[in-house]
C-alpha cells in the first residue's frame, strides 16, 4: 500500500480515536499527526500480522500513552497553584497547562448536550480503559483486535471493558441527577 492510500484510508480513523482519547480538537490533531507520521515511517516494515487499521490504532494508542506518562512524571511531585496560597503572585505559571487553543470541553458541554456529558465521562477513565471502550464501542473492534492493538491478553480486555462500562454507568447516572 502506498503512503497516499494509507493516509486516505486511515487518517480519519486515527483522528477519531485521537479525538476520543484526548477530548479536544487541537490535542487530537497533534496526536493524530504524530501517530500518522510514525505509521508512514514504519509502513514499509509492516508485516501484515494484523489488520492495518489495528496496527495504526496500536501506534496511536502508544503515542498517546507516552504523552500521558510524560505529563504524569512532570506532575508527579505534589504542586500547588501559587495563587491558592494567598501570597504575592509570581510571574510563573504551571508548565503543564494544556496547550490546546480551543476552549475547555466543559464550556461547551451545554451546547454539546449528552455527547458532551458522555465525552467528559470517558475522560475520567484511565488510559487503557478509555482506549478499550473507544475501540469497542466506536470502532467496533473485536476483543481479539483490541488485544492486539493494546498488546494486552484477551481476558484482560474482557474484564477491563466490563469494569469501564460499570464505571461509565455510575458516572452517567450521577450526571443525570
Amino acid at each position, binding site marked *: 500500500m502506498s503512503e497516499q492510500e494509507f*493516509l486516505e484510508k486511515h487518517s480519519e480513523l486515527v483522528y477519531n480515536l485521537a479525538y476520543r482519547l484526548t477530548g479536544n480538537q487541537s490535542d487530537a490533531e497533534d496526536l493524530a499527526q504524530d501517530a500518522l507520521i510514525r505509521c508512514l515511517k514504519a509502513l514499509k516494515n509492516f508485516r501484515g500480522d494484523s489488520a492495518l487499521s489495528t496496527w495504526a490504532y496500536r501506534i496511536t494508542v502508544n503515542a498517546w500513552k507516552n504523552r500521558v506518562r510524560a505529563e504524569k512524571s512532570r506532575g508527579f*511531585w505534589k*504542586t500547588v497553584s501559587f495563587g491558592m496560597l494567598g501570597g504575592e503572585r509570581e510571574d*510563573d505559571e504551571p*508548565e503543564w497547562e494544556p496547550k490546546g487553543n480551543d476552549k475547555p470541553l466543559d464550556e461547551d458541554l451545554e451546547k454539546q448536550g*449528552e455527547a458532551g456529558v*458522555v465525552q467528559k465521562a470517558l475522560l475520567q477513565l484511565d488510559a487503557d480503559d478509555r482506549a478499550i471502550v473507544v475501540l469497542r464501542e466506536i470502532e467496533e473492534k473485536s*476483543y481479539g483486535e483490541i488485544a492486539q492493538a493494546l498488546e494486552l491478553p484477551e481476558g484482560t480486555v474482557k474484564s477491563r471493558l466490563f469494569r469501564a462500562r460499570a464505571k461509565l454507568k455510575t458516572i452517567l447516572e450521577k450526571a443525570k441527577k
Partner: protein
Amino acid sequence: MNEEMRERLSAYLDGALGESERLAVEAQLARSEDLRLELEALKAVSRSVKGLPRQKLPDGFMARLESRRYREANKKEYWILPPAMRPLAFALSTAVVALVVWDHTRPPELAPTAGWDGQSAKVVSTADRPVADADFAARITQGASLEASPAAKAEKPVLDAKFAKTLGRRVDAPGKPLEFVETDRVAANSLDGAVAGGGAAAPAAPKPEPAREAAPLKKQATEEPVFTAASDKGSYHASSEEERSAINEKLYEGFEAEKKKMGIARIIEKSDESKDARDRSLADMMELRVPAAAPAVGDTGTASLAQVSAVRGAVQPRQKASRAMGALSGAGAKNADSPASAAPAAVRVVTARSADALSAAWIGAGLAGDPPKVDFSTQMAVFLAGPAGCGVTETYVGKKTVTVFYRLEGFTAPSARVAAVPASDKRVLLKPAP
C-alpha cells in the same frame, strides 16, 4: 448477582461468549429480573458511547500533516546531547571559559613565585656558573626536562636515591615542588662569587646560552652538593638541602594560596583510586561552587565542595552528627533571594544533581539510613538542611523558579527533607508553608 456473572453479561452483550456460556447466560436472564435490568443498563452505556458523533478531519489537516512531515524530514542534523549529558557539557564549557579568563586576568601575586623571597636561597644564573656539561646547561636554561644528557649522566651523580623519594613527583605547574637534581659538586667558595638573586621573582627564563667549552670546575677536598631545579619559569639553585627544603616549602605555600583563590579543595590525580575521585563526575565538581566568604552554608542553591567536605569530615564517624548539624545550620543564613519572606537561620535548601551530592548532604545533616532514591537522569533533588523534624511540604515548579515549601517541625521521617523536581537550572526558592 456476583461479579463474574456481570462480567459475563458484558461479554454476552458483545457476542464474545462461547456457545455453552451464552446458553447459560440466557437461561439466567430468563429467570432473573435483576439480571435483565443490569443488561439493559449496560446496553444504555454502550449506546451512549456509540452515539458520540464521528469527527471529520479538521480543515487543512492534511496540508498541516504534509508540512510537518516536510519539516521533520528536512531538519538539519545537529549533534544533540541527550538531556542527561547537557549539564555536564554546560559545566565543562563553563569551566574552560572560566580557566581561560582566570589565566588572563590573575593578579601578579598569584604568579608562581609567590612566597619566594630570594633570601633563603641563592639564585644563580647558569651563565655565571658554568657547568661542565654544556648541553645540560643549555637544556636547564631553556627550562627543559631535568633529565641530563647521557654524557652528563655518565659523568656526574645525578640524583641521590633517598633524596629523590622525598621530592615526590615533578609537575610543571607554577608553585609545585620542584625536583632538584644534584648537578655537580663544586667548592663551596666558588658559589660565593655567584650572583645572588634578590627580590621575590625568580629570574625570567634565561636566554639560551650558546654551547661553549665550560671550564672544568675546581674540585676541592671539601665538596658540597649544588642542587639545581628548572621549571618553565626559570632555574632555582640551592647550595644545601636546607635551602632546597626552604625553596620547596615557599613554593608549596604559594601553591596552596593559589588553590584557595581558585576554590579548589583537592586536585584528583589520575592514580587516585578513591571512590570520590572515580565516581564524582566533573559536572558535580564544577557545579559545586565555593562562596566568596569563609565556609558557610551560604547561598540557596548548591552546596560547595568545601562545605560538603568539611561537613563530611565533621561526621566521620557518624557519632559526630551533632557537630555536622551545627556546621550546616549554624552558619547564619539569610535567604538572599527573598528577603521579605526570609527563612529562619536554621533552614537552608541545597540542590543535589547526583546521588553522591545527595548522599553528602544527607550524611552532612547526620541523618540515618540512606536518602530516598531519585531518578537523576531527569530530576534533581532539593534537600532541606535544618533542625530535626523539618521537612518539605510541597514544591512548585514555575517557568523561572522552583519554590520549596517547608515546615520546621512535625516530620518524623528523614526522607521528608528530600523532594525531587524536574532537573533544570532554575533558581530555587525556599519559603515556609502557609
